[in-house]
């Protein structure tokens, strides 16, 4: 069946994609906002247990595609997605699939840290609670603590779990959002420019964290910063005007881009 669809040919597929199991498979995806064609015939394979970075000038459709992966685009009435996106071989736009369940399996971290205006504890506990993960209070507490620890935030907030999540600094807020996302134990974590609102030190901490999380999650990160993509990702996809121009191992993309547009963008000629 794969051979019917134009895909990156197996041999020329990025090394990382060959080494790791396939997690997300997109084929001939088009996304429209009303009349606007935001994503044009996109196909990509995203490997598990690795960080994949989407780069490209702003407005090229990185966020749009990212939001198609957890069907967050469903909340935009004018938005229409065609084509095929599979996670672990299951079509996520299948009518019988429950969106809410899907989103629980795919965590998302947004550009601007958006903790709930509730306590730090509540922020992390909310997801597990609505999904009935914890049998009792101690269970829930344990989930919260491990999630905060995984997000590298626990040491900083352990004495004030009852403080409002919004009282934290920007970087801490973003790590809280990551903790909130991993508390429901997702398989995929989508991050839409998670560091664009943060200072360099906070950014460095998040990058470290992403590198650690890579062991257990399939991470897709949209970023504006090519250095960031180079630092944290193993796979890089370059978007331009709604087209996926080039996908490859991060090392290859940054050292030997095949496409002229990729080269121009990487060398800072536009963007």
């Amino acid at each position, binding site marked *: 069946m794969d051979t019917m669809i134009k895909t990156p040919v197996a041999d020329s597929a990025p090394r990382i994609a060959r080494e790791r199991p396939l997690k997300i498979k997109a084929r001939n995806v088009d996304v429209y906002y009303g009349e606007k064609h935001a994503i044009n015939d996109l196909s990509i394979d995203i490997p598990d247990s690795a960080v994949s970075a989407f780069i490209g000038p702003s407005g090229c459709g990185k966020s749009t595609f990212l939001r198609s992966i957890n069907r967050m685009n469903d909340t935009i009435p004018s938005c229409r997605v065609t084509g095929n996106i599979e996670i672990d071989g299951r079509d996520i736009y299948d009518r019988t699939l429950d969106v809410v369940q899907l*989103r629980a399996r795919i965590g998302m971290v*947004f550009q601007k840290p*958006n903790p709930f*205006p509730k306590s730090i504890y509540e922020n992390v506990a909310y997801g597990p609670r*609505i999904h009935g993960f914890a049998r009792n209070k101690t269970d829930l507490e344990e989930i919260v603590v491990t999630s905060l620890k995984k997000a590298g935030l626990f040491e900083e907030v352990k004495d004030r779990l009852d403080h409002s999540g919004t009282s934290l600094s920007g970087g801490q807020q973003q790590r809280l959002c990551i903790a*909130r996302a991993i508390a429901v134990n997702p398989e995929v974590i989508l991050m839409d420019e998670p560091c664009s609102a943060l200072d360099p030190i906070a950014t460095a901490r998040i990058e470290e964290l992403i590198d650690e999380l890579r062991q257990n999650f399939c991470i897709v990160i949209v970023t504006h910063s090519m250095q960031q993509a180079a630092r944290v990702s193993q796979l890089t996809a370059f978007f331009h005007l709604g087209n996926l121009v080039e996908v490859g191992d991060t090392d290859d993309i940054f050292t030997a881009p095949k496409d002229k547009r990729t080269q121009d963008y990487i060398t800072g000629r536009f963007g």
Partner: protein
Amino acid sequence: MTDTAISAAPRRVSDNAALVAKRYRSERRFKLYGIAAIAVTAVFLVLLFADILVKGLPAFFEHRMMLPVSVSQEAIDPQNSKDPKIIRTGDFDGPIRESFRAMFPDVTSRGDRKKLLGLLSSGAADDFRAMVVNNPSLIGTDAKVPVLLSDDADQYLKGRQTGVAKIAGQGTITASADGEKFKLVTDKTPVLTAGDIVRLNGGAFRVVSADNGAYLAEQVTAPKSLDPANAGAWDIVRFTVTEHNRRIDDQEALWLEQLKEKGVAENGIAWRFFSSGDSREPELAGIRGALTGSILTLLVTLFLCLPIGVAAAIYLEEFAPKNRLTQLIEVNINNLAAVPSIVFGLLGLAMFLNFFGLPRSAPLVGGLVLALLVLPTIIIASRAALRAVPPSIKEAALGVGASHQQAIFHHVLPLAMPGIMTGTIIGMAHALGETAPLLMIGMVAFIVDIPGGFTDAATALPIQIYLWSDLPEIAFQSKTAGAIIVLLVFLFVMNAAAILLRKRFERRW
């Protein structure tokens, strides 16, 4: 651009001093207009409030006399049954009248005595009755009983009928009969003018003419004798409003002056203004009935409006498809908010009374009509509050796998709640002050009883104000202003609550 434009001398912003000066002048002028507008508004507001306060504050006080009354066993409970039912039927009028008359032993003629008793409120005996029923041990003793004065007497003592000045007499004065009238002669410089009352030897004369030191006067109260009165033994009472321009005549005024001089009349807080319903007697009328009516009405309104309004707002804002139909609904909700309130009254009359046959004058119907009126306000405010919650909060909830409804009820609605409450309180305040639609459904009526339920006949506070403002007695005008003060206090408190709520919970994210 053409070459000339490029080659023209470059202009600097600071070049044109006249332009700058003009701009400053214009700014100053605009500021002045603004200040003037605010000043005018402030002046009107201050005048309005001052007027209402001056007129209305006396309504919270009433004059009563502490009279010693013998609570006789025979008149009240001859069998000594101690049964409240029997005590209630006792004669409480008589003892009070007797005690009051005892203060004026000189008043003997039938007509004068009737007039004297007219100074008492018709409710005085009821107060006394309630006092004895609540405390039967008073029977057989002499009790100090607060006796309420009539509205006119009360108004006089509050100085709202006429100003009054008392001037001690200088030198000796002699009154001598001169036909029907009396001649007054003083040995000091003349001080009397026509209309003055001269009190001497226990009697009183009203000066009718004062020509060239010869005073002609008519008798108001008969004196004990016509002996000359020395300085200090007579005085002049001068009213600023002539007798036929006030509701208390000279004789009654003199009795009230005597009460004042004896120190039996006291001005106390009129709790009955808050504790009793409407009455034909101004001194007995209170706002409790109207206030209860208003509260019952608003309860109905609140219980209908809040759930329906919030549900409608959530549906329109979060769930409704954006199509022609929902657009039409939106536009019409906004239109509904602009419909004159009397139209809602007519609708209520046609629908609730004539079609559904609900009772007239009932808070239930009033509440239904006001709910129609307030609903658009609450929907609009709630939608604005929901829209003001950043979408990122909802996305965060959806991102961890909350359903749309969970995201809204767990996160968006709590954050929108202060805004919704603010809108609701403002809507309720609006409903509290609303009069016209309630007139249409018959909530305008003289209702003495305090309404006890949602289907009892009732009025509302603004309607009570409207009803009282129409009555001729000055005491009712005072009550009108007093009721307005109460209404305004409620409105201010509600608006302050709305503002506090907004301030307190503003932007928590």
